[in-house]
């Protein structure tokens, strides 16, 4: 315990800088993965439809636990969008599969952008429901199509 307090200020500043850099890097990786996700109904990507946007991705580091917490906010195209849950599912599965290291992911609908925002937020952050949804062949097929990378 005592050793932890015994640092000189210089090295600490350096450490802070390193973390900031790291946060930017994670943010870029996350956004690059999200921008190409296709809308479940339209031929456009979520980025083209402004459903996801760079400012919607924020990273918080919990240094104590050595955890990167990624928060993704998205804006459904219409306030009663029936596909909001599906979009949330696509975001989660794409990141879960492709991030180069483990992250903690929280996904939220832009505040005020959906009539049942609270219910949807709860659903898309419940990992048990997500896991079960991905074992449903119909849902899985839709998600796989939306998150497929095209080269």
């Amino acid at each position, binding site marked *: 315990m005592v050793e932890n307090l015994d640092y000189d200020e210089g090295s600490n500043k350096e450490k802070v800088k390193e973390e900031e850099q790291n946060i930017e890097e994670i943010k870029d990786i996350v956004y690059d993965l999200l921008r190409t996700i296709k809308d479940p109904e339209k031929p456009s990507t979520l980025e083209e439809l402004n459903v996801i946007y760079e400012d919607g991705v924020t990273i918080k580091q919990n240094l104590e636990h050595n955890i990167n917490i990624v928060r993704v906010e998205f804006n459904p195209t219409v306030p009663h969008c029936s596909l909001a849950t599906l979009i949330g599912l696509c975001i989660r599965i794409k990141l879960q599969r492709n991030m180069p290291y483990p992250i903690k992911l929280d996904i939220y609908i832009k505040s005020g952008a959906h009539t049942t925002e609270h219910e949807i937020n709860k659903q898309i952050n419940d990992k048990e*429901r997500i896991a079960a949804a991905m074992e449903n062949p119909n849902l899985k097929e839709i998600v796989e199509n939306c998150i497929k990378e095209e080269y």
Partner: protein
Amino acid sequence: MAKLELIQTLKKDNGRVWNVSWHPKGDAFATCGEDRCIRIWAKDLLGKWSNKVVLTDGHKRTIRQISWSPCGNFLASASFDATTCIWDKQSGEFECNATLEGHENEVKSVAWSSSGQYLGTCSRDKSVWVWEVAEENEYECAAVLNAHTQDVKKIVWHPTQELLASASYDNTIKIFKEDNSCDDWVCCATLTGHDSTVWSLSFEGNGSRLASCSDDCTVKIWKEYTPGNPEGISTSDNNSVWKCVCTISGVHTRTVYDINWCPLSGLIATACGDNSIRIFKEDSDSGPNAPTFNLICNVEKAHNEDVNCVAWNPVVKDLLASCSDDGEIKLWNFVDS
């Protein structure tokens, strides 16, 4: 300083492990998860825990939970494929000799009552089912309880009575018992206080209190006040009231997925989405109506991802098993020096 010493790490490279369940004799345990099979682990000749049996052909989807019968001869498994399987060794090898159907979708939890006479199951279909164990390999549905308004995540039986507690996505806990006057199972208490999904529950060894954990990042301790209790807490219809007597907040930084109250030591272990395992001990100086539980051990990075389950060995004191999204199962020894 109290600490958890890592004894062994087990891994089979098959994705998320949801649950670990000790055999009542304490010399073996079962695990299950995303890979749709059940593994039974016991010590080898060198004293190392190793995988003895793999049960593969019971379920078509994730196995969410497994539970040993109190006699140790039966193993029940709850799956996202909407069925519950009962396995036994009558033929010499483990076989699925009964499949319980009825839930509309994912079965999330299964548990045997202490007498072994009843089996409880619950599902995303919002219902809790009580099954009566009849003749050989026969299970009769004794009740379908539709008290919750959302998914039911977990059920546990009282350690001595035929009393069933359920935890739900509707943020409440409900308690069910058989009403002898109408021969039917009824909800006799609803415990409200959590602000989000209640993920798991565990009774204290003597059954007088219940611990719960939630997506709201808290743990709550509920105490039973029976009719005519000396504290003068009012009850109705001759039913006990369960009151929250302690809330542990500000300790867990993500969803608390599991909680286990050890009947041997009285210690409470929690499994958290921040990768930590924590151990709490009741302050012996605190009063019965306002107990204090102190965090005496905090293992950060106990696993590399969410910890899904913690289970104290029912025979060997201070032996704890845990499992995680990282696919690992770990065995720990609690040391309080």
